[in-house]
């Protein structure tokens, strides 16, 4: 790994200032960035650790919204969001393994936007709002393709606010070697309609399956999806599964999510 300068600011302002320097990059829990740096796919000159920044950690709930600080670990969300937003907590509790969950953060996961990551489906499926040091970004505008987001270079995710649905569920079909989702579906039922977000399947990263949303908004039952098929042409194909297989999994996991939504 190439060397770099390590800085640990304690306020958002200091962190923003540190990120202005050439070659500076934010460090969350490091559970994606460190392996990437070991492979020299990233070689920052300065790493700005966010874990010491005040006011960016923890879970709070009020008025039907759960807000998660940008450096909150997956383990904290699994524990602290369990009563306010059980489907979100369950998703966090299935990420990777315990050691990964003790370090990895929601901000890092959403900034990275891995096409097989879990959190992007919860953010898009819940219609979350992603707050940064500059603005609030609606999840519908935030995800812009595989590893692509609306974030600017020096933008920091400070918190993520999730409207809490009446019922929701995340169903992950595990890719057991990587521990990511081979395909995962987040279904959320709101008074105004149902949202369905799919991860691990598309070459464009997380996406909403609008046909399923329409069918489920009329009738929230797994059977309402029986005649729906999703086109496989833009799906990921790799040694773990073909495009057709992933398209099939999207249907299966969506039906399971509807059946288990609570």
């Amino acid at each position, binding site marked *: 790994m*190439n060397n770099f*300068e390590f800085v640990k600011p304690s306020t958002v302002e200091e962190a923003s200032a540190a990120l202005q320097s050439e070659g500076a990059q934010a460090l969350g829990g490091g559970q994606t960035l460190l392996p990437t740096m070991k492979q020299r796919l990233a070689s920052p000159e300065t*790493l700005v*650790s966010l874990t010491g920044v005040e006011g960016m950690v923890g879970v709070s709930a009020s008025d039907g919204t759960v807000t998660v600080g940008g450096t909150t670990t997956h383990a904290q969300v699994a524990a602290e969001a369990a009563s306010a937003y059980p489907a979100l907590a369950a998703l966090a509790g299935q990420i990777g*393994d315990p*050691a*990964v969950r003790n*370090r990895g953060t929601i901000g890092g996961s959403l900034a990275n936007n891995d096409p097989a990551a879990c959190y992007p489906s919860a953010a898009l499926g819940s219609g979350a709002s992603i707050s940064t040091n500059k603005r609030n970004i609606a999840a519908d505008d935030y995800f812009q393709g595989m590893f692509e987001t609306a974030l600017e270079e020096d933008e920091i995710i400070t918190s993520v606010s999730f409207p809490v649905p009446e019922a929701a569920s995340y169903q992950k079909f595990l890719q057991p070697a990587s521990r990511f989702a081979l395909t995962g579906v987040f279904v959320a039922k709101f008074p105004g309609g149902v949202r369905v977000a799919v991860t691990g399947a598309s070459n464009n990263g997380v996406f909403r399956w609008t046909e399923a949303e329409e069918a489920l908004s009329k009738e929230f039952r797994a059977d309402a999806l029986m005649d729906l098929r999703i086109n496989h042409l833009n799906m990921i194909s790799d040694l773990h599964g073909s495009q057709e297989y992933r398209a099939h999994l999207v249907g299966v996991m969506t039906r399971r999510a509807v059946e288990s939504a609570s």
Partner: protein
Amino acid sequence: MTKVTMTINGKPRSGDAEGRTLLSSFLRDELGLTGTHVGCDTSQCGACVVHVNGKAVKSCTMFAAEADGAEVDTIEGQANADGSLNVIQQAFQDYHGLQCGFCTPGMVMSAAALLKENPIPSEAEIRHYLEGNICRCTGYHNIVRAILAASGQDVPAVAAE
């Protein structure tokens, strides 16, 4: 280089670290604590698990500088004060929970973290908790049995999943 200080197995220790020095390298190369093993480059094997401020983490996936000021527990601190094996280590020996021993430090540290959170785990909970610890030798059954024993439970002949 900067100086990094942490409390390791209850004792203050310090040493030099570059920005890029991993906690695992700091423990092994700077402090000579080679009980923490490094089995992969991809954060997947868990041989390097230590506790930082009481939480199991992969020491290969954290910089030493991030642990500055932290309490770190490694396999070297697990034995009882008189040097005898602690209850988890003894159970690994009694139930043949190791063969080559490469994964064992990480397995024992993960098991210790599990039993702190959940003192009487079920077999399924043990298997779930060990998802980030890979063993090339044992096939896991005897590791699971060792942890059941260490938690004071009866040890059935566990069947393959």
